[in-house]
């Protein structure tokens, strides 16, 4: 609580102790403001962009999102694995409200994954889809759809399975 210090009626003020109190209180207040400002500027921690084996970076159709997708390298034939990754928007991870859908298919053979997968958001902000299985060898089209409110944007890439 900040106390307002007033001069008494004949113009005499209190001694220097009151001034010190005011200064301390102001400092505290400034410190609090500064603390909130700094905390507010820091969003969720930006993960370091993973690179290396198994990681692919794909831009969505209009460039709104950057998808960092991880698959086993090489991706196995007819065995289940987990596809996972991150979606960034303007360099930052997307909000927890955004929905991510991972899917795959072989459009040249007019089929998708034999068993559709469910994509979930992880507590760390990433996404994962368990049970992905490429049941045939050949070229697979992988898609990652990012949905925010009424809008959806797609990122896609190909992978060759031998």
């Amino acid at each position, binding site marked *: 609580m900040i106390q307002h210090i007033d001069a008494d009626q004949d113009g005499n003020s209190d001694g220097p102790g009151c001034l010190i109190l005011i200064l301390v209180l102001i400092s505290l207040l400034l410190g609090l403001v500064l603390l909130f400002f700094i905390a507010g500027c820091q969003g969720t921690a930006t993960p370091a962009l993973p690179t290396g084996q198994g990681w692919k970076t794909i831009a969505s159709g209009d460039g709104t999102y950057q998808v960092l997708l991880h698959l086993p390298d090489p991706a196995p034939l007819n065995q289940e694995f987990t596809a996972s990754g991150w979606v960034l928007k303007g360099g930052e991870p997307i909000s927890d409200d955004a929905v991510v859908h991972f899917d795959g298919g072989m459009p*040249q053979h007019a089929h998708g994954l034999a068993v559709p997968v469910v994509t979930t958001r992880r507590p760390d902000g990433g996404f994962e889809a368990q049970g992905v299985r490429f049941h045939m060898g050949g070229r697979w089209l992988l898609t990652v759809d990012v949905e925010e409110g*009424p*809008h959806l944007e797609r990122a896609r890439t190909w992978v060759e399975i031998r």
Partner: protein
Amino acid sequence: MTVLLLLLLCSGPVLSNWAQNSTEAEDGVLSLGHSLGTVSFAPAVPVAICSLERGGFAVLTERPAQLWIIDSSGERDAEPVVLPGAISRPRGIMPLSRGHFMVVDRSGVLGEIDRKGRWVRTLPGPAAPWQPAALARGPGGKGWLVTDLLRGQVHHLDADGLVQNSWSGFIEPTGICAIGEQIWVSDRGHHRLIRFDPRTEQPDATTAIGDHGAAPGLLAAPMGLCSVADRWLLVSDRDNHRVQVFGRHGISMHSFGIHSMLPRIALGRLHYPTAVAFDHTTGVCGVIEPSERRLQRFGVRDPESPVPAAEQWQRVDLVSHYGAYWALQRGGRLLAVSEPDSERISVLVRDLENPFEVDDIGGHGSLPTRFRTPTGIDFVPGTAVPRIVVADRGNRRLQMFEVPWRWTGPMRREPALIRLVRSVDLEQLARQYPSWHASVPPRLTALACSESGTIAVCDDANARILLLDARFRAIGVFEAPGLLREATAISADGDGFLVADAQSGQLLRFVPGQLVPELIETGSTMPVGVDRHPDGSIWFTNGANHSLLRIPPGGGEAEVILAGAGTGERQLFRPRAVRIDEDGAVWVLDHGNHRGVVISPTGELRHFGSKPYLPAAAAGSGKGRVQ
């Protein structure tokens, strides 16, 4: 007393005969398929049918709105009953006692008429606006069941027409009936039969019967329904040109009808059947074919006669049936076609003798890249890689695709060429944009993209045009209450949009920032396609008389360019979209003829599409000239 006894004794055998015949008739359901002939209603369009207690059928037509009685032998009454004025576009009929009928009109009017067509009473029905598509007796014979296309709902009304219960979750409920206590609904948008017990369940499309397709048990735009002896269900499987018979267990047990091509002969062939009814006294099934202006009657097949129908679906020649909309790439070679029958869009290279399809995308469903009836389509101008926007009516969304096609040599199909960029759920978007709030969800039809990047999509359900930018953000809305009623076509026109309104017969020109559109009279027509020519003239198609017309630059009387219902060189049949390229070539989507017609800037005519419908198929050229 003696007389009474005598009467009872005499009627015994008659009653038992009727009962026996009735059972036999119903058991013959799995052998239906033998054509017993047709009843023509031309030029009127038959739209609804019900069976009569004493045998025979009652059929409602529109244009003009009439009631016809067909007796058990298939003979039509000499004169129809003229319907009251409030029933101009009837959609459902059910028999009542004393020769009365319950009828419902597309506008939502519901009521009882007598055998002379006079109003007896009006029933309230659901709150307006609503758009009924079917009418049936309620479960257990109590009250009425009606469907509402506007809201995708089904209502149970009591005998006085008051709503007792309503169910949502449908897309286009086109047919309805009750079997015992269960309600069955055919949903054209889902391509499924949705059944539920109204006492204990909610309708669930995910567990419904059927899916989009041609195989037995699959459906393509199911329309009318009727039950037989609470055991079987007859479903008119419209786009498969057949009637399927389902058991109560939901398994398809039988089907009859093969697609009739040209000439549209009957003899068991069907062409887009809609309503269906079963005469319990004779075991005859009546099937309405509005496009043929006729009713076909089917009886039991001779067990000795060969039945090739089971093979037919496997050899279906799935030729493109262009829908109502298509688009030309500006400054390019591509043609994008919306095909609602097959729930897909296709992209063709157009500047060839026969446009070549390089890829298609779609399939029925709600997942990204799928459609529930694609409608309007247009290219987005000024993009490095060609982009298309498609209105997805059943999913109430827009989808934007990229087509990174380049000429590399011999033409070939390239699977997965067309790629989804983005989509937007318009119902959700409307919640974020107050000007878009409406009483009913949007029903998307025509679409156009302007040079400035504005996307205009017609919302049929709310008589307005929604405006978005290239990132699918809402930027505005065109409304003209009283002026804009049923937008059937739209095209970009300089700083505004040209809109064809089939209900008013007018063309309207909307310009952003102007409150009132400019009205362009076309005469007494039903414009269903429109575009502006580089020379300033306006070209439009007339759905009422199968023609293509041109309004000269600066206005004036419309000149007929192509006319006449037929497959001839200068004829059209149910034409829809018109698109004009920057060179002045006019592209007409001749929907009913499964073909496209191109008029070059020098007046030469060219046709492409399904071979049986090409005018000079025998000569092999497909070319002609417009005078």
